[in-house]
């Protein structure tokens, strides 16, 4: 068993996000809205030695099976991440994260005087205008934000 597998125990059911850019696991959890409040086990390992990257973070979320539209939210933070859906200790689905052109309902616009932050029945929508460094434009107020502004 390699060193990285020793760092975090195997899980029976849930989602393992591997090859997360080193030091970004907490931001990944924040973007996914994983707070630990629901009582399920969440394990993170940061700066684990890795073959692919020289270091990586790993996030394991038990009893939750994240859909692609959820995990794609982290493409901006860690495009290298791979998502493994685990059932009964087996990887039943493996996928990369894919940054969409448009993020609908993922992030709120950080501009407090944007109409998308009022009580109107609308879904916030941000368009990716640049990938590295990531910049997004709000559909409504048209302001451009850096990733840090969104998390």
């Amino acid at each position, binding site marked *: 068993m390699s060193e990285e597998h020793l760092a975090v125990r195997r899980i029976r059911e849930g989602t393992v996000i591997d090859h997360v850019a080193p030091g970004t696991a907490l931001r990944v959890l924040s973007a996914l809205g994983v707070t630990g409040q629901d009582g399920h086990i969440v394990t993170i390992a940061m700066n684990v030695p890795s073959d692919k990257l020289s270091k990586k973070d790993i996030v394991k979320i038990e009893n939750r099976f994240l859909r692609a539209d959820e995990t794609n939210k982290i493409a901006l933070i860690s495009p290298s991440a791979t998502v493994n859906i685990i059932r009964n200790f087996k990887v039943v689905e493996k996928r990369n994260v894919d940054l969409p052109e448009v993020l609908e309902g993922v992030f709120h616009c950080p*501009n407090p*005087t*944007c*109409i*998308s932050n*009022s*009580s*109107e*029945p*609308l879904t916030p929508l941000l368009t990716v205008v640049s990938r590295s460094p990531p910049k997004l*434009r*709000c*559909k*409504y*107020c*048209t*302001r*451009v934000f850096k990733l840090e502004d969104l998390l």
Partner: protein
Amino acid sequence: MTNPFFNRDVISIREFSKSDLEYLFKTADQIQTLQPNRRSSLADGRLLGVMFFEPSTRTRLSFEAAMLSIGGQTISIIEPKTSSTEKGENLHDTVKTVESYVDLIVLRHRMEGAARYAAQVAEKPVINGGSGSEEHPTQAMLDIYTILKERGTISDLKIALVGDLKYGRTVYSLLYGLANFNPRVFLVSPPELRLREEALSDLEGKINLSQHTDLEEIVSDLDVIYMTRIQKERFPDLVEYEKVRGTYVIDNQLLSKGREDLMVLHPLPRTTEIKPEVDSTPHAKYFNQTIYGKTVRAALISLILNKEI
């Protein structure tokens, strides 16, 4: 050329090309030469819904006067005190209600993106009458029309935009609009009120810009001073406001250092940034703007409502 404004929303001036704007200005010229009965048939039987959720007498009067001048009528919702904390009907439902009565809506709102959202909700065309510190496209249209009427051209004119460039929505619309006409633009503001970063990057390569803090230093070079009010209501912090108000004041002493044909514009209302002594000089063109404004808005409404004029 077919009418590029017919049945269209006017949310940002960026959605319109140079030839679109020229088409609008040509129509504005044309409308003034029409026989009164022909002119008042342009919006005959049509209704403009005026929805103003932020204090403004000037822009509202201008739209109403424009609509009446082409034979149309207006109904209004004026709720200047509405804020996000006061629970009322949401904008969505209000727009839906108003659009069932009218042919066209003009909306002013304190939040950025409000007009874009209203246009998404409404099937009838929506004109942005000012959305937070985002844009005020019809003001920019009339500003550009004013310069063109007074000077004949904008190409290579030296234009200074002065004051609150961070929160002043007219500035954004004006810059995006001017970018079509190849002027030389001087941005003059206190460091804390500089143009927002995204606008600078949006405008990069599209317009010749430089940033300044001292107006006196460049005044002798200028063809146009576009003065803006430092708006108290946009400041999150009143200490900041007190620090920067009164930074720039146009008076006859300053203008004496400028060219004889230097033109002073202002979207109005002004507070103390242009001294009344300037009003009677040939430099003062801000009241002319008001007249051009009604004409441009009448042309715009006519073009939205009629495929052909």
